[in-house]
C-alpha cells in the first residue's frame, strides 16, 4: 500500500502537535508496511529514514518563519508572515500548495491520499481529482477550536467543509472533534472514524534518563507547568487565574509557561496585574532536550485548554512521569484515566486540584506511576492500525 500524504509541518520544523502527529503516524504506518510519500509545502532541511519526503516548492525557505503558519488565523498570518510565501495571504498559499500538489499527483503513483487539516485539504482534493484515488481527510483541529467559536474565518470554514465533503473518509483525533464536525459542518457521523493520537514512549523514556540539573529552584519550590501555544484555544489565561488562587494558599510554587503565541504580551501583563509576576516564568517555545527537561522539572502538568481536539502534550507529560490535570474539553481525556480532569472555566476546582497534588505526595506518586504505565499503551501503532483499517475499508 502506498499513501500520498499531505502535511504542513514536520519535526523539528514544527510549532505544535500537528507536526508531531504527522511524524508519529507516518513512522508507525511505515512500520506496518505502508509506503508513505510525505508532502510538505516548502523545502526544509529535514531527513527521515522511514518515508520519502517530497517538497512541493523546491526553494529552501526560512524555516523559523513557517512554523507559526499552521496555527494562525489568516488575518494574523498576513501580518506576521511578512513576505513569507511571496507576501500573499495564507489562503492563497493553501491554493498554491494545491496547484503544486497537482503536479506531484501526476508524477507519483499511489493508492490513497491522506491530507492533514484544512491547510492540506485543497492539495488533497486536487490530487484526488487528478488521480481518481480516494481521499482521507484527517482533522487535528477545526476553525472552531482555534477561535473558540468566535470570529470563525469563513474562507477557512469553507475549505474545511469542502475537504470533509469531498473526502471518502474522515479521520478525527477524538470523539470530541468528531462531534464538532457533525454539529458544525453537518457531516454524517458514519463517515468519520476516531483515530486517537499516540505517544512514542521509547523516545520519551530515552530522554528521561538524560542527566538533569534541576537547579536551586527545586529545593524549595514546586513547579507547575503549562506547555502549549499561548493562545486562546489553550486557555493560558485560566492557568494564570488558577495560579493566583494557588499562590494565595501556598506561596512556594512557581508557574512555568512554556510556549509562544499571540497572547504572550497580554499574559505577561496579566501576571503583573494579578501580582504574581515573580512566580510566573515565561520560557518561550521549547523543543527536544529542553522540552524533555521542563516536563521532568515540573511537579505537575496542567492543560487548561478551552477546546482541545486531542492534546498530545498530556501524553508527553505522563510519559515523563509527571502527573497531569487536564481540561474536560479535550480529546485526550477520552483516552487517559490516570489523571485529574477539570472544566477549563472552573478556576476554583483547578486551583484546588493543583494544591492537592502538590500537598499530597502519595497522590502525586500514584498518579505518576499509573499514568506512566497507562500511556505506554497509547501508541502510534494503534493510530496507524486504525488508519490502515480506514484505507482498507475504502479500497475494498
Amino acid at each position, binding site marked *: 500500500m502506498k499513501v500520498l500524504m499531505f502535511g504542513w509541518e514536520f519535526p523539528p520544523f514544527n510549532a505544535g502537535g500537528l507536526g508531531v502527529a504527522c511524524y508519529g503516524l507516518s513512522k508507525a504506518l511505515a512500520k506496518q508496511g505502508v509506503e508513505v510519500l510525505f508532502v510538505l509545502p516548502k523545502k526544509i532541511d529535514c531527513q527521515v529514514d522511514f518515508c520519502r519526503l517530497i517538497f512541493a516548492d523546491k526553494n529552501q525557505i526560512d524555516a523559523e518563519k513557517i512554523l507559526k503558519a499552521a496555527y494562525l488565523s489568516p488575518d494574523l498570518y498576513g501580518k506576521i508572515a511578512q513576505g513569507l510565501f511571496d507576501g500573499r495571504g495564507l489562503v492563497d498559499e493553501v491554493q498554491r500548495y494545491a496547484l503544486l500538489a497537482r503536479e506531484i499527483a501526476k508524477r507519483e503513483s499511489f493508492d490513497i491520499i491522506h491530507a492533514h487539516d484544512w491547510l492540506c485539504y485543497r492539495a488533497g482534493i486536487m490530487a484526488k481529482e487528478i488521480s481518481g484515488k480516494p481521499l482521507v481527510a484527517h482533522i487535528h483541529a477545526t476553525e472552531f477550536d482555534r477561535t473558540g467559536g468566535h470570529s470563525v474565518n469563513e474562507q477557512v470554514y469553507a475549505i474545511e467543509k469542502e475537504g470533509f465533503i469531498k473526502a471518502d473518509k474522515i479521520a478525527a483525533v477524538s470523539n470530541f472533534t468528531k462531534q464538532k464536525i457533525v454539529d458544525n459542518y453537518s457531516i454524517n457521523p458514519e463517515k468519520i472514524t476516531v483515530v486517537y493520537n499516540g505517544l512514542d514512549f521509547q523516545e520519551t523514556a530515552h530522554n528521561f534518563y538524560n542527566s538533569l540539573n534541576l537547579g536551586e529552584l527545586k529545593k524549595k519550590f514546586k513547579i507547575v507547568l503549562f506547555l502549549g501555544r499561548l493562545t486562546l484555544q489553550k486557555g493560558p489565561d485560566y492557568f494564570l487565574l488558577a495560579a493566583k*488562587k494557588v499562590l494565595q494558599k501556598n506561596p512556594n510554587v512557581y508557574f512555568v509557561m512554556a510556549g509562544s503565541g499571540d497572547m504572550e504580551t497580554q499574559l505577561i501583563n496579566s501576571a503583573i496585574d494579578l501580582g504574581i509576576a515573580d512566580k510566573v516564568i515565561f520560557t518561550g517555545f521549547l523543543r527536544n532536550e529542553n522540552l524533555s527537561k521542563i516536563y521532568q522539572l515540573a511537579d505537575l502538568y496542567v492543560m487548561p485548554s478551552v477546546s482541545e481536539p486531542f492534546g498530545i502534550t498530556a501524553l508527553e507529560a505522563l510519559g515523563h512521569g509527571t502527573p497531569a490535570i487536564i481540561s474536560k474539553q479535550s480529546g485526550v481525556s477520552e483516552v487517559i*484515566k490516570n*489523571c485529574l480532569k477539570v472544566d477549563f472555566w472552573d478556576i476554583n476546582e483547578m486551583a484546588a486540584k493543583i494544591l492537592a497534588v502538590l*500537598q*499530597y505526595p502519595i497522590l502525586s*506518586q*500514584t498518579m505518576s506511576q499509573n499514568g506512566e504505565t497507562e500511556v505506554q499503551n497509547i501508541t502510534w501503532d494503534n493510530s496507524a492500525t486504525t488508519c490502515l483499517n480506514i484505507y482498507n475499508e475504502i479500497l475494498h
Partner: protein
Amino acid sequence: MPSVCLYLQTHQPFRLKNFSVFDIGQNQEYFDTSANKNYLERIARKSYLPTNKLLLQLIHQHRGKFKVAFGLSGVLLEQLEESFPEVIEDFQKLTATGCVEILAETYHHSLAYLYSAQEFKTQVALHNRKIKKLFNLQPKVFRNTELMLNNQMAKQIEEMGYKAILGEGADYILGWRSPNFVYQAKNGGATKLLLRNYKLSDNISFRFSCRDWADWPLTAEKFAAWVRGSEGDGEVVNLFMDYETFGEHQWEETGIFEFLKNLPTEILKYPENNFQNPSEVIKLYKPKGELDFPNIVTWADTERDLSAWLGNKMQKTALENIYSLENEIKKTKNKKLLDTWRKLQTSDHFYYMCVKWFADGDVHKYFSPYESPYDGYITFMNIFNDLKLQLK
C-alpha cells in the same frame, strides 16, 4: 438434603461532599446529605421497597418455609430512619414473621478489625444496640465487612459470643473441598464457618442479565435444579449477595423479580430441599472439617482479598491516617466528632480510591460519587485534615 441459606447484604455509606483544599478550616459539612438522599431514594424505589414487599409475600405464601437472612449496616439504617422510615417499617414487618434473621456486623461497615481491636468491638456493640432497638433481635451470627475472614477473626468472634461467621468459599482456601458444608477455622475455636457458594451466588448477582452467558436466561427452575445437583456434594448452599442485586444491579426489566418470586416454589418442589437461616444451619449440620485462613479473605473482585480497599498507597495512607486519630478523638469525648470519625471509616470511602477498575470492569465505580480514585483520595484527605484541625 441441601438447605439453601440466602443472605442479603444491605448497606449504603454516608458519601462525602466535594471538599476542596479551600474548604479546610471553614466549618464545612463533610457529608453530602442531599446526594446521599438521592442515591437512597433511587435504591429504595428500585430495590428495597419492591423486594421487601415480594419477600414478605413469599414468606406468607410458603407459610414459614421460605427464610432469608439480612445484613443491615448501621450507617444504612441511620439514613433510612432519617429519610425513608417506610423501609425500616418494611424490615420490621419482615423480622416479625420469624423467618428473617439479622446478622451482627460493624455499625459503620468499616475495616476497624484490621486497625483497632477496641474500635472493632465498639462498632459491633453499636450495631447490636441498633438492631435491638429497631427489631428487638439479638444477632447470633457474625459477618464482617465485605465477608472478611481469617483464623484469628473466627477466634475473636467466639470470644465476643457469636456462634458462627460468614466467609467466602474461595477456591484457594477450599481446594478440592465443597463450599456446601459447615466448616471450622484453624485455631478458630468453636466458631462455625458458612462459606459462600460464589458460583451459584454470582449466577444471580453478576450473570443474571448477561446475554453472553451460556445459561442465559436464568430461570428459577434451572437454578433449583443446580441446587439439587449439589446433593451428595454438600448440605447447605450459601447464597450471599448484595440486596441491591434485586432491582438495582439487576434491573426490574431483566426479570430478576420474576426469578425471585418463583425461586422458593422451585427450590421447595424437591421435598428434600429447604430454606434455613445461618443460626439454624449450624444447629442442623456438624462441621465437616477445618480450613486454614491464614490471611484475610474477602468476597471482592477476582483476588478475593483486601486489595480493593488496601491495594494502593493512597488507600493505605488514608486508612492509616484516619485510625491514627483514634486516641485523640476519644479523648475529646465529643459525640459529634466521634460519630463523624466513625462515619469516615466506612469501607466505601477507600473502595472509591481503588485504581484496579481498569481490569476489574466498572464494579468499583458503582455508586461512586467521584470521577476518579484520585478525586476520592483528595476529598478524603482534605476532610481528614479538616478533622485534624478540629482536634487542636
